């Protein structure tokens, strides 16, 4: 017996082999097409998903462009606004702000420097991490200042290391590593 037939029989009050079925069962043909429509909340979810996907795409493009140029510039942001719309650029800007610190830094292999070799150690038990900073030697052929090696050891077992350009790091950055790079650069201790 085909499944469709079985459903029909079941709805007609017949079970398998014409035995008693379920009289209240709904026939497949009774289900209206209208009920298959996407509900408004689902629709809005899809819309937002689509929007975020578009934004992601735009962000990717923006990133590659910014990486090619070497840094993020306000001109580029305004051009992005024109290209993909102010709202999208706004949201991207927010996200980029969060990533800007890490983007300004270069991820490097972890050296596991001991505390005694560090210029600055910040222990944050409440947040579950330790930051270790060490000023490196002067960059060859560059006037930009000194790179600062920052190591972040988290209590989830992860350790990451970044190289910040101390001269360009911001004191009021949202990223604790960049703030530390700034602090190390402007501390009294000389190399």
């Amino acid at each position, binding site marked *: 017996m085909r499944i469709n037939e079985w459903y029909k029989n079941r709805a007609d009050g017949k079970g398998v082999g014409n035995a008693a079925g379920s009289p209240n069962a709904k026939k497949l043909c009774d289900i209206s097409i209208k009920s298959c429509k996407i509900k408004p909340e689902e629709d809005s979810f899809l819309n937002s998903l689509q929007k975020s996907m578009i934004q992601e795409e735009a962000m990717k493009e923006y990133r590659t462009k910014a990486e090619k140029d070497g840094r993020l510039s306000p001109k580029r942001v305004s051009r992005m606004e024109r290209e993909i719309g102010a709202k999208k650029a706004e949201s991207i800007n927010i996200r980029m702000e969060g990533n800007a610190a890490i983007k300004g830094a270069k991820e490097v292999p972890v050296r*596991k420097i*001991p*505390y*005694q070799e*560090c210029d600055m*150690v910040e*222990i944050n*038990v*409440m947040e*579950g991490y*330790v930051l270790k900073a060490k000023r490196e030697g002067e960059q060859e052929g560059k006037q930009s200042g000194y790179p600062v090696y920052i190591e972040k*050891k988290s*209590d*989830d*077992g992860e*350790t990451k290391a970044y190289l910040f350009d101390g001269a360009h790091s911001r004191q009021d950055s949202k990223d604790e590593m960049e703030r530390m790079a700034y602090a190390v650069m402007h501390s009294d201790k000389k190399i």
Partner: protein
Amino acid sequence: MLRNEEKEAEATFEKYKDILYRIAFSNMKSKADAEDVVQEAFCRYLKAKPTFDGEDHERAWFIRVVINICYDIQKSAWFSRTVAFDEVPEREMKHFKIPYVEEDETVRHVMGLPAAYRNPLYLFYYEDYSVKEIARIMELGEGTVKTRLRRGREMIKERILYGAEKGQEPYGKGEGFQGKALKEGGKDAD
């Protein structure tokens, strides 16, 4: 021959005495007790004369022995009757100095934790050990160490936010299974 052995033992003592004292102090919260623990650890070393694969192995062995001695003392009836566990007396804190790190109130909160959490947190934050190294020293799984680090951090947060009474409640004076197990630094804490 004896002179050489003495010199070697002395060199080993000089190499590890500071870190072992700090670990013992974080557990015992008293200068005199910490010194006794370090002395006992070296006595065990001289008695057992263990062989090591390298310096890391040797250091891990010493730390493990010191932690075990602290557990043994804290489990004793005499200690539980005479010493308040969770408090670090102000007069004793002047005998405790962590090099290269700016001290704050947090270290006292770490010392106030039950042994199962205190040692991983202390080693991780103040002695710069990794999760893997702590797992090896304490003969625990890496996952257990991570869990203890996270829970210990939450306890400290609770203690700072809601005050000592509430923060101490879950691991207070041996009340309940958890408190008892944790106080003894047992592996069943997780």
